[in-house]
């Protein structure tokens, strides 16, 4: 009798839950299969439409539709700030692209597309001075902030002042802004920027790509106020297609269509950005229709996305590259002596089957790269990736004097007067299933040619710790490292290969983790920083890539994929390496 009562209670609980579920809003229609959007390969017609819309500015403001269109994006990480200059997170940059993309951004073809600027300064019309130090920027006329106030060149100048103001400690990077000497604003649409010294990556300033940059800030809101802990960081006044209506931290960012946007009101009225910190939960949310767009999946998620009904996978080939870096420090106490020999380095590249890795672990959706500027205008496409050739690799190791004298399967040889075994650790980030899988294959390939590579992975906050934090990469306490980075939209590698950027106790913040110092490369990096002509500069980069390739200075693996899950309602996405998918948010639409 009592047993029956207990079962009755349990049944009641289950039924209650089901009744509550039944009270849910009406379920959406069954999810049809979606043909993935073109992603990286965008249709010329779409581009033409985009450019036509841009040319039509300022467009007439369309009346909001009777039934508001909404879209939900699932972010796996929450931005630390919605003003990207005060956040180093890509998620903050994406919100920035949708709300405040700056004077220009980069389109589906990786080309600059004007936002607030009328045109890019150029030498032909004299808006770049002959000495390359003065740039005249022209804004579009009649621009307005999301609160309806006019946006003028005074805001442009104020943005620079805000970024270099020492009181604003939240600003992450001043790179380039600290090269500006002065900005004059002769009228509301003109800003004349005078640089202290020539700054080649000037195109990055005041603009946003899909992975860095920040837009303008409104003087009428922020003048006389410090940026740190300012509400502006959480609810900025912006000038893009959307503005931030609210941010419930940990939960939801609500973006509303900006009626004052120069292209006119975007098609979707409200974009919810929902924090979904678990990748599995994001996949489930995409399947149930709780989320329409899920960025930042990993390559390993592609089959899951493709096998989920109603969800399409978009894999954009990015300019980020996965590579292994040799510790090339010439001091034997810091560097690994055998890596000083180019034959050993080249043997390692030839000895790893990167092509099988790309075909299997990355499902053939990306390619093996030969350099560190893949899918950018400066990529030296003449350089074919080294083939997988274990026989040639072993011949090179033999020639360099590394043989398996003791018969344990691992080669050893004399280096700097000592016998050194080709056995070392490899440090990359964990947890990361793809990296672990690549590492396992690479280790097996290397073992086949007599080199032992032992995984010694670290969490990102340890691997990337600074010099003072005893980070292995920063301090040179590694033999072979591995991570992903990119040099876009401007190709300048920010000192990554400069001799004077090798981190030391005296210069702990140096950017050259490769710890390489080649005078020829150093000279090329110095020269590219001094060239205003983009063609001449690209030539230097191509020469530098040739030098890196010939000297096998690192093991380039593959161009990373930017993987997104897309639900059936969203249309108009066009992905690119420089602009991600958010550059044309004003063209996105949702089907009912």
């Amino acid at each position, binding site marked *: 009798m009592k*047993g029956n009562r*207990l079962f009755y*209670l349990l049944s009641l609980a289950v039924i209650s*839950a*089901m009744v*509550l*579920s039944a*009270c*849910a809003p009406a*379920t959406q229609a069954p999810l049809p299969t979606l043909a993935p959007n073109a992603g990286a390969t965008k249709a010329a017609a779409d581009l033409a439409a985009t450019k036509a819309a841009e040319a039509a500015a300022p467009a007439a403001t369309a009346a909001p539709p009777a039934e508001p269109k909404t879209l939900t994006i699932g972010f796996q*990480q929450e931005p*630390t*700030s919605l003003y990207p200059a005060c*956040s*180093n997170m890509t998620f903050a940059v994406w919100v920035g692209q949708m709300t405040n993309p700056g004077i220009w951004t980069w389109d589906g073809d990786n080309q600059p597309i004007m936002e607030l600027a009328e045109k890019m300064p150029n030498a032909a019309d004299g808006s770049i001075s002959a000495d390359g130090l003065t740039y005249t920027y022209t804004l579009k006329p009649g621009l307005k902030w999301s609160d309806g106030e006019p946006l003028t060149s005074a805001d442009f100048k104020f943005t620079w002042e805000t970024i270099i103001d020492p009181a604003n*400690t*939240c600003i*992450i*990077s*001043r*790179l380039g802004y*600290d090269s500006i000497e002065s900005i004059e604003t002769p009228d509301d649409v003109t800003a004349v920027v005078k640089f202290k010294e020539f700054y080649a990556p000037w195109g*990055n300033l005041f603009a946003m790509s899909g*992975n860095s940059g920040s837009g303008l800030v409104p003087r009428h809101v922020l003048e006389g106020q410090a940026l*740190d*802990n300012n509400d502006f*960081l*959480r609810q900025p006044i912006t000038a893009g297609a959307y503005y931030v209506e609210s941010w*419930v*931290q*940990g*939960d*939801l960012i609500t973006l509303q269509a900006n009626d004052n946007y120069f292209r006119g009101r975007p098609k979707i009225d409200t974009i919810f950005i*929902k924090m*979904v*910190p*678990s990748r599995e*939960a994001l996949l*489930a949310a995409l*399947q*149930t*229709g*709780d989320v329409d767009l899920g960025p930042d999946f990993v390559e390993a998620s592609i089959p899951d996305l493709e096998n989920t009904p109603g969800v399409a996978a978009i894999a954009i080939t990015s300019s980020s590259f996965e590579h292994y870096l040799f510790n090339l420090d010439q001091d034997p106490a810091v560097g690994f002596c055998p890596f000083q020999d180019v034959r050993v380095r080249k043997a390692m590249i030839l000895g790893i089957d990167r092509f099988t890795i790309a075909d299997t672990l990355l499902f053939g959706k990306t390619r093996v790269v030969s350099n560190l500027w893949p899918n950018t205008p400066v990529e030296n496409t003449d350089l074919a990736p080294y083939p997988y050739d274990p026989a040639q690799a072993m011949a090179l190791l033999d020639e360099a004097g590394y043989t398996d004298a003791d018969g344990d399967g691992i080669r050893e040889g004399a280096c700097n007067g000592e016998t050194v075994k080709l056995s070392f650790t490899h440090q990359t980030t964990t947890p990361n299933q793809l990296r672990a899988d690549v590492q396992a294959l690479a280790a097996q390939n290397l073992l086949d040619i007599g080199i032992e590579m032992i995984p010694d992975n670290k*969490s990102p*906050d*340890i*691997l*990337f*710790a*600074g010099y*003072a*934090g*005893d*980070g292995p990469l920063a301090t040179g306490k590694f033999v072979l490292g591995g*991570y992903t980075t990119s040099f876009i939209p401007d190709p300048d590698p*920010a*000192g990554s290969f400069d001799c004077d950027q090798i981190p030391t106790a005296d210069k702990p*913040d*140096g*950017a050259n983790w490769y710890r390489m110092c080649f005078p020829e490369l150093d000279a090329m990096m110095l020269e590219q920083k001094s060239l205003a002509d983009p063609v001449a500069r690209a030539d230097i980069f191509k020469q530098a890539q040739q030098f890196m390739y010939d000297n096998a200075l690192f093991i380039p693996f593959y161009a990373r994929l930017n993987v997104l899950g897309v639900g059936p309602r969203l249309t108009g996405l066009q992905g690119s390496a420089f602009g991600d998918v958010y550059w044309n948010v004003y063209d996105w639409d949702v089907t009912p």
Partner: protein
Amino acid sequence: MTTYIVRRLIQGVFILMIITTVSFGLTRLSSDPMAQYTLGRISAEDRARIRKNLGLDQPLPVQYFKWLNLAARGDFGYSITNRQPVSELIMQRLPQTLVLMVTAEVVIIALSALLGIYSAIKQYSLFDNVLTGLSFVGFSLPIFFIALTLMFIFAVQFKVWGLPYLPTGADVWDFKEPYELIRHLVLPVASLAIIQVAGYTRYLRSSMLEVLSQDYIRTARAKGLVEQAVVVRHALRNAALPLVTLIGLDAPTLLAGAIVTETVYSWPGMGRLFWQQAGRGDYPTVMAILLIVATAVVVFQIITDVAYTLIDPRIRLS
């Protein structure tokens, strides 16, 4: 009793001091807040400026005492990633965590009591054997597996099958309506409950079995008391002590939240905040949460001890 409580509180302050020292050391040595500024378009000068601004250029003991000095006055400082007061970040999350965890705890205690007592009374019955088996399964399963499985069945598959389904995430902005809140609570609370109920039921069952075999229970029955009175008034009161201990130990987690459950169900609680900020090297936020939870542990221990005297008059604190 008062002397006892005062003495325990003074001990508690020393315990907290030790905890903060160890936590600060571990937090700061296990991750470098500068790690997030090492890649990308950022100059050596920027990195040096950020390190100085964040006070990371000072020796670790100096950083600790600066933090302690402020924390002792209830000021947890600013988040080094979000540039807003840590107390503000915590106060946004605390109510969400309390809603989830208190609901879960109530469900857990109610279900455990019900199942534990019933299981003990009906020892070796089919129900008892099945429950014992399920308890071991529930206790052994990792929470992420339970949470994702429940989500897959009741949120994803139910929708595919055309049945009424539950939501995958928190959607806190919908919580203005109570029924929405309850709908969203069902799966995370169920995930937390499955593991905890499994454990608690075992404790209460064995405790009840021990008590039920005591002489005074036989006496109570011999007096002619109805079985319900024997179980509830005589047995449960004595058998509840171990459960009170467990609840006392669990109480601080009401504030700490549940990292995995909150992550899987996108619940904007303290557990997720802790996990997220720990990964970003935001030590002021991490330390504040650790201090709050450590304080809760100390306080709830004292409350548990006092609760013993109320449940069992034979226990005297001195």
